[in-house]
């Protein structure tokens, strides 16, 4: 990994995620910091990233590196943690049963991923699918249901889920630009994950057939 990527690109990508992910655009614009719960989920996400090789912490912090390089590495780790928490916070609905369900879902998902111990490629693919799915659920389905009006789609979905959620499904509808900001946040976060210094998979040598045992 180049010094420019470690010192300039990664911290700034994650800080942009932290900034844009915190925007809540409604009647007024507010910046919401990540809650303690999503900070905990962010830690879990980093743990899974380290376990799968998406992040190789010894390439960011090591006694063989200079103090300045270690400082850059520490900044990457801290900003990654905050960005991970903020990216998850963007995907969690603001209130009601959906908020509770998404909170539990992300916790179980991260614990399950840690137990499954996927490799780098599978984990990145899994995050892309999960985050994409959560984005569609929150910004298309839930906000479609909560928006004023009675379209056929809304009536059908309400009929499906109204009894299950005891009516606590409706969310406050944000400004239309909120979905674009969330999309940018998630996209940037996934790009940041892809750019992290990762652990190379172990090299497997395959012996020629004539050297194999039993031949």
């Amino acid at each position, binding site marked *: 990994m180049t010094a*420019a990527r470690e010192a*300039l690109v990664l911290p700034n990508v994650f800080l942009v995620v932290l900034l844009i992910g915190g925007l809540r655009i409604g009647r007024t614009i507010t910046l919401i910091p990540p809650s303690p719960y999503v900070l905990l989920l962010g830690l879990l996400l980093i743990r899974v990233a380290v376990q799968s090789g998406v992040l190789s912490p010894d390439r960011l912090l090591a006694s063989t590196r200079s103090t300045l390089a270690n400082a850059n590495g520490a*900044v990457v780790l801290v900003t990654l943690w905050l960005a991970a928490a903020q990216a998850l916070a963007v995907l969690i609905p603001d209130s009601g049963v959906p908020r509770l369900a998404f909170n539990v879902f992300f916790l179980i998902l991260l614990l399950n991923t840690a137990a499954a111990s996927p490799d780098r490629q599978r984990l990145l693919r899994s995050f892309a699918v999960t985050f994409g799915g959560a984005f569609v659920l929150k910004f298309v389905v839930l906000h479609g249901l909560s928006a004023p009006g009675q379209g056929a789609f809304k009536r059908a979905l309400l009929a499906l889920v109204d009894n299950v959620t005891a009516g606590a499904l409706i969310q406050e509808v944000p400004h239309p630009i909120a979905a674009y900001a969330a999309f940018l946040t998630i996209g940037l976060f996934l790009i940041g994950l892809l750019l992290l210094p990762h652990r190379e998979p172990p090299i497997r040598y395959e012996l020629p057939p004539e050297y194999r045992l039993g031949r």
Partner: protein
Amino acid sequence: MSETATRSIGLGVATAFAALIGWLYARQPQTIAQVTGGLSAVVGAYAVDEQSFEDALRFFRNDQFVEARMAFDRADPAVRDARTQFYIAYSYYRQGWGRTYHDDRLYADGLTAIDRAMALAPAGRLVVDDPNLGMHTPEEVKAELLAGLRVDASDFNPLRVFRTRK
């Protein structure tokens, strides 16, 4: 560029960006003017628009409080000047004041503005030397606004009609 230079610049940029984000979270600016004004104030380069401030004072002294607040907002678009916020609060007080009743909504807005003025005042202390005002400090204005919002026995004193607006 050498690796050390790249790393030093990266560390500096990330620190500055993180500080900006922290400041935005703390201040919660609502407009670009508030962002730029707030950042200018951090480096001591913020100043109110004196022409708009003079216009606002003229409106204020003519009891044209709505017009005065518009001009005060124009003078201090970033909401960073304690004196301007003091006058805005005072305008709410004067507009909401009545011999037999006070307008609670205007008084509540005044309370918000005077709290802003107190938060912005250097070391929390502000004295406005304006001979046209009956109160010269935010503490006096805040006490008057709070008294107006409170319902107590003095509200039923018929002699209150002889009180004067400050």
